[in-house]
């Protein structure tokens, strides 16, 4: 189904959280991501959808894959892409986020992609500048393109996730990925399960529309997909969980444990992985089970789809003479 079939345009001027999206938005983005994924697999990846537009990637947290993914996405769409990262940012010299935002806005970019360690930072940048902002991760709040790419990759592998049983296991409490995935899974009508030690679950998480488990074996029963989350190093040292070996023993996803799930159950991880902490090393490399590299590939396509929609809208709104 193409866009014309439901005569609906992508109306958003920013992407802060997946909660801003409705199922039609997601349909548009997935359709366009399908298109870009095919082009990305061809030798001629360059396009001119965003030619003339400027995209600033503003990263206050260290990142390799997300920054590279947004940079490639922008460049393949023909935008001029500039990266600002923590190491050389003015905030190191004491500049406030508000001043940084205004300074960058004065350079007239049409798109800002921002990652920041504080929840609400992307929303703040958008309020300050009015420029189309893509949240590339803000604190423990949201990481909408990760949610989109996870579900895009999953849908491509197992079809419509509506009614499918999807388990997210790991550090739900601190994870913006978990929040974004739960938002997407709710929008798409999946049956959601969350599994973690109680110290890594938010209070009142039972109100997220998910079933909560502490025991991974119980949680895996009949699952069609398992999304494992990264455990941050600083959480492994005894404050919230005693040790990595205990974590792996109880919450590590292994091929053996997956026998409790649906026979075709797939495994995902947003990366970067801690092998044999969140996921058994061999399972991560099992092409039949693991979608981990599919996720990375889907990431570029989904970000192209998002930048394309926001960029085209920005182009309309800033047409000279209007």
């Amino acid at each position: 189904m193409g866009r014309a079939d439901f005569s609906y345009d992508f109306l958003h001027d920013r992407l802060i959280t997946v909660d801003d999206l409705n199922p039609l938005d997601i349909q548009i983005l997935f359709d366009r991501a399908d298109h870009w994924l095919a082009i990305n697999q061809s030798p001629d990846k360059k396009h001119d959808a965003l030619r003339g537009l400027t995209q600033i990637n503003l990263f206050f947290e260290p990142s390799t894959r997300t920054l590279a993914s947004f940079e490639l996405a922008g460049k393949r769409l023909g935008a001029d892409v500039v990266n600002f990262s923590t190491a050389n940012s003015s905030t190191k010299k004491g500049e406030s986020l508000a001043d940084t935002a205004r300074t960058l806005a004065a350079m007239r970019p049409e798109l800002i992609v921002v990652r920041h360690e504080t929840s609400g930072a992307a929303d703040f940048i958008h309020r300050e500048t009015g420029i189309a902002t893509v949240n590339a991760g803000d604190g423990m709040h949201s990481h909408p393109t990760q949610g989109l790419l996870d579900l895009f990759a999953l849908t491509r592998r197992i079809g419509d996730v509506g009614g499918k049983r999807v388990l997210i296991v790991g550090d739900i409490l601190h994870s913006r990925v978990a929040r974004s995935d739960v938002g997407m899974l709710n929008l798409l009508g999946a049956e959601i399960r969350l599994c973690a030690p109680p110290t890594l679950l938010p209070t009142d998480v039972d109100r997220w529309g998910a079933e909560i488990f502490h025991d991974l074996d119980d949680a895996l029963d009949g699952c069609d997909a398992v999304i494992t989350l990264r455990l941050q190093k600083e959480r492994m040292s005894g404050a919230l969980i005693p040790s990595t070996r205990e974590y792996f023993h109880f919450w590590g996803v292994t091929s053996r444990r997956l026998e409790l799930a649906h026979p075709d159950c797939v495994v995902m991880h947003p990366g970067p992985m801690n092998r044999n902490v969140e996921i058994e090393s061999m399972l991560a490399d099992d092409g039949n089970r693991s979608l981990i590299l599919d996720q990375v590939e889907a990431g570029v396509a989904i970000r192209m789809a998002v930048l394309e929609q926001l960029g085209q809208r920005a182009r309309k709104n800033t047409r000279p003479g209007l």
Partner: protein
Amino acid sequence: MSAITIRNARVVDPASGRDELASLRVENGLIAEIGDGIAQDEDHIIDAGGAILAPAFIDLRAAIEPAFTPGGETLDSLARAAVMGGIGTMVISPTRDMPMDRPETITGLRAAALPLPVRALFCGGATMGLAGETLSELGLMAACGAAFVSQGDCPIADTVTLRNLLSYASGFELWVACPPRDSGLFRQTVATESEAAARLGLATEPAVSERMAIDRDASLAELTGARLMIDRVSTHDGVEAISRARKRGIEICATASIASLVLNAVDADGLDPAFRLSPPLRHEEDRQALVAAIENGIINAVVSDHHPMDLDRKAQPFSDAASGSISIETLLAAMLGLVHEEELDLVSALRPLTIGPADLLGLPQGRLETGAPADLVLIDGDAPWVFDAGNSVSARRNSAWHNRRFQGRVLMTMVDGGIVYNLKG
């Protein structure tokens, strides 16, 4: 294996409330039958001569010393003292010297306990070194057979750490035993705040320290859904705080040490270091409140709090002496003192030594019913004797009970259907 019938016994079972003259038949390590005329032809017959027959005791708190401690209490020496005291199941608790905070330690100790004449369970240290900072591998310790986890004598000062501990343990449905002490008020004190202690010039902890800690710990247990064990309540206000928490539906249980239940600050006889204990001895009203809390079930278990150490650590002025006393051999006799003083009836006195702790840990023993393990104790309720710490079976001599006159002692202890102690040899 031939069966044993103990006949002419006063069968006392707090689980069912039974207290009657009857026979009890043991076969294949289990209680086969209780009643009259149940002995079979080939049975080995023991005539109890009207003595009390009860479930062998379950002691949730006894310590040993690290391996190779010169003259130290070992699992073996403790087990021999335990069976003499009528104990069939003992739980080894973590201490600063031996924090038992690794799953490998639990596995090793359980293997070492296999040849013992008693059942030994192990309580894991809840935080590394009991320092109250870093979680121990609670899940792996539970998987290795830890019965529950405990902070030993070390309260956790930091509420975030305590919250995380309770929260994490709740995922494994483990009891977390916490000593009810406010870390600040408790630090470097040696006695309960009172007019007498002040005159003796002792550094004192106000009794409210206990109530504050119970209120705090219970609030966090409510928040996290954890199972909280108040490890040795010792004050009137502490008992009330537990009662309040239970009314709120919090999963909270409580133990009391035999010393807190039987002795008060006056018994400490001024500055005798033998009576330097933790918790410190309290006022008589506190002791009476504990006895009442046994009667009404607020206290689930009475523990020996057996804490052996080199006498050199006690050969110090009161304030410098280490705290603790050996007490596993005298646990029953001290408890029977409350019965002879008519403070408790026999069934109420035996409940926190049998079915009370058994139910907390989900153990099948601690009750007299067909099919239950034949862990039994035969008691002469009236025999007078004097405890001489110099002759203790425990490897250590530090005792608050030295030279104390008791009435009532263990005649025989049976574990798993085998006689593991017989007073007459």
